[in-house]
């Protein structure tokens, strides 16, 4: 299934869809696309964007990465104004206004104990074939604390060419797969006290800026 930025494609089973946000070079070259969930109601997400002429809404905080083979028919093409609302909402959830300002700053941390997967921290994901992939949290902490569904980006030590969409991080020891960013249920990250943590367990502000720039490119933010 081909997919382009701004299109809503059905997701197998049910009345949900995916509003594709990844850039069209990505959509053409990769086997997957990234975008936000389109669902019948948005009362659980204060950042939902209405889609004119469609009874569903785009849930800005529910970013997904989906293999193209799992997409079904083209259901809707989002008007550019709505697409910009979605992109703006996502920029906000990702803390881009402060992170990509000059000088860059980390998104604010809400008061109280940190009992959630925190911005900039790296956690192991669910175990799979005797290994666990590493994910860095890129959504801001108010979102992480409130929803329990942080947006994460996978990091890998499998080195390839450095590029804005796959920036080198951790002093060259790893790269971030920005186009594969997705929301994960908190329970899928090993973030409880006492859980094993990767080394390093967090990214520097410089690395987080590189990841933000990468997502701005891959997701057209």
């Amino acid at each position, binding site marked *: 299934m081909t997919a382009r930025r701004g299109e809503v494609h059905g997701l197998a089973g049910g009345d949900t869809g995916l509003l594709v946000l990844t850039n069209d*070079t990505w959509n053409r070259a990769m086997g997957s696309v990234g975008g936000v969930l389109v669902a019948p109601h948005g009362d659980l997400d204060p950042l939902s964007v209405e889609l004119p002429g469609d009874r569903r809404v785009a849930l800005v905080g529910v970013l997904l990465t989906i293999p193209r083979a799992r997409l079904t028919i083209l259901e809707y093409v989002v008007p550019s104004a709505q697409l910009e609302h979605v992109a703006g909402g996502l920029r906000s959830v990702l803390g881009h206004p402060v992170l990509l300002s000059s000088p860059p700053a980390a998104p604010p941390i809400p008061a109280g104990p940190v009992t959630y997967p925190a911005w900039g921290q790296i956690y192991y994901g669910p175990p799979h074939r005797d290994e666990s992939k590493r994910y860095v949290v890129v959504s801001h902490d108010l979102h992480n604390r409130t929803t329990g569904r942080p947006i994460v980006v996978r990091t890998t030590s*499998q080195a*390839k060419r450095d590029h804005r969409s796959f920036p080198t991080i951790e002093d060259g020891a790893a790269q971030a797969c920005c186009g594969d960013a997705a929301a994960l249920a908190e329970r899928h990250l090993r973030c409880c006290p006492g859980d094993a943590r990767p080394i390093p367990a967090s990214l520097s502000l410089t690395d987080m800026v590189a990841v933000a720039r990468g997502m701005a490119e891959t997701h057209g933010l």
Partner: protein
Amino acid sequence: MRALLLEDVSEHPERYGLTREGSEAARLQALLELGAETARRRIEEQEMEAVYREWATDSERSEAVEELASLALGTGGLIDEVLGRGPEAAPRPTE
């Protein structure tokens, strides 16, 4: 060719994103800059596509994407949770 191009630029500057202000030399310079910008963008996009294709064939990455998709689309997964379906949909306790 150059003369024809300059004539077209002079008569229809708006086609090239230019205004009617300025000398012919200034228009030619602006046109060259536009051409350079277009070429720069094209090279950047080709480079981007080459990098993307390299990652597209990475089996570890494909596995990770499948894993993330399954965690979202599977029964009781992220989408069910967001839509209030299934056992994991209970509201998050307030602190």
